[in-house]
């Protein structure tokens, strides 16, 4: 492909919302990526609400008299019991931070957690 055609190709691609274009024929191939295709810096904002570990310790999905089965995409109510983090001799309850769908379960029974570590992510219910 000669440079004039290539220039016209690039100019045209800018009129579209294409992010990436691959053109191949025997003897020639062109791959164009626009700036929009590049990974963004870490300033993404998530619509998901994190549920943070209330303590440093071991996470358990159940506690005495409270057995629960957590499933991704299950509906949860704000304040719902999501397990406990057991420190040395005390345990702190993990409670849902919002009404919505349990989108990500980032911890499993018996895993270690630091104070403030995100354990779950909830997609809040649209009002």
């Amino acid at each position, binding site marked *: 492909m000669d440079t004039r055609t290539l220039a016209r190709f690039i100019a045209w691609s800018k009129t579209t919302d294409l992010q990436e274009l691959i053109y191949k024929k025997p003897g020639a191939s062109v791959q164009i990526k626009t700036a929009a295709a590049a990974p963004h810096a870490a300033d993404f904002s998530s619509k998901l609400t994190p549920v943070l570990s209330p303590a*440093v310790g*071991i996470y358990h999905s159940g506690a005495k008299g409270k057995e629960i089965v957590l499933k991704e995409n299950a509906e949860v109510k704000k304040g719902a019991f999501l397990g406990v983090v057991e420190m*040395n001799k005390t345990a702190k309850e993990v409670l849902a931070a919002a009404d919505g769908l349990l989108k990500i379960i980032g911890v499993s029974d018996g895993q270690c957690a*630091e*104070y*403030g*570590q995100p354990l779950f992510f909830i997609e809040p219910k649209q009002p």
Partner: protein
Amino acid sequence: MTKPETKTITVKKFNKVLIANRGEIALRIIRTLREMDIKSVAVYSQADKFSAHVKAADEAVCIGPASSKDSYLNIDAVVAAARLSGADAVHPGYGFLSENARFAQAVIDAGIIFIGPRPEAILKLGEKSRARELAIKSGVPVIPGSDCVVEKNHLQAARKVGFPLMIKATMGGGGRGMRPAMSEADFPKALDTATAEAQAAFGDGRVYFERLVLNPRHIEVQLAADNYGNVVAFAERDCSMQRKNQKLIEESPSPFVDKKTREALCAAAIRLAQAVGYSGVGTVEFLMDESRKFYFMEVNTRLQVEHPVTELVSGFDLVRIQIEIAQGQKLSITRGRALQINCHAVEHRINAEDYTKNFLPCPGAVAEWVPSGGIGVRVDTHVYPGYTIPSFYDSLIAKLIVWAPTRGQALKRSARAMGEFTVRGVDTTIPFHKLILNDADFAAGRMNTGLVEKILKKHENKK
């Protein structure tokens, strides 16, 4: 004297140690662990996420929010972090949980070694009245006192204690509810006032008496004791330069203590340690009067802020000694070697405080930070340029320690190093240390626990 326990002690090298502390002391401990090829685990609160000790450690665990009560003072959280990280031992540093027997016991109950004395020893020595009883039993001089509440025959009891004396409220504490009686003539009036004040402040008018030590010096003896009954004492530290019981400058050896007094001090401290079967490092604090008579005050069952002066004078790493003892090793130092004085060392505590405003703490961002250096200078600090001093914890930001062959040379070096130390962004006590270094009484070694207040007043009057 309690005989050392006959249980067998196994010597086992630690692989990993958790430091239950923050700031300069956490960093100080990590350094020795690294030299000993032991992995370090830092714990931190959310306010300390960017603290130097978190970066310096091999591992770091967030244990709670900013407030100390929920993080560095939270026994369950610290023990949980130790268990999760697989630490063999916990080093408590100073302050926070370092003298908490319940914490030491919780660490032991979790199957982890506590780098410090046994919880029973912490309990026995931590309670003032019990420690005093122990001191009396082991022949360590204590400040003469009524030893109990005086309910009747006040004057007779006072005569027995001797004048000048201090009338103290039974329920008082922290300097409150105290009245001096300089002589027998002063006594009736002082007693009336003290009883009335105690009644008003604490709802309990009962009092006890204690001999008043005039113009005392604060002299303390560093000890190290192993699990086999061996105890050594190091040359004394003079911590008379203090304000409201907060030490500002510590030095070793004391310019006031002679060889004979030093030997008597050390012998007394060793007797007390042996009486409780002490193990680990610890410090016995004394008050010394103008005739070099000394009286037992209290025992600190931990490493102290001012431990570096002893390290420089003796040439030993006290944190290493602590760890070796906790690993079950025997002390490798003889009493004679521990008492050897290799130089004169002075420590200046640099706090983020404005001394012109009653030492008001000044937390905030440190814009410029150039610590002093050069020959005979050691700076223990956790501060770096751009660091923000959190408002949640104490205001100690650096310890400037100097050493030289003589006290005169060491003070010259202090002045030189203090001049180099540049901090912008927050107020520090550096200007106040410069004032002290210019004081004739301090330069001549004529210190007592009231000198700092006197220098402050002199300076205020000049303005």
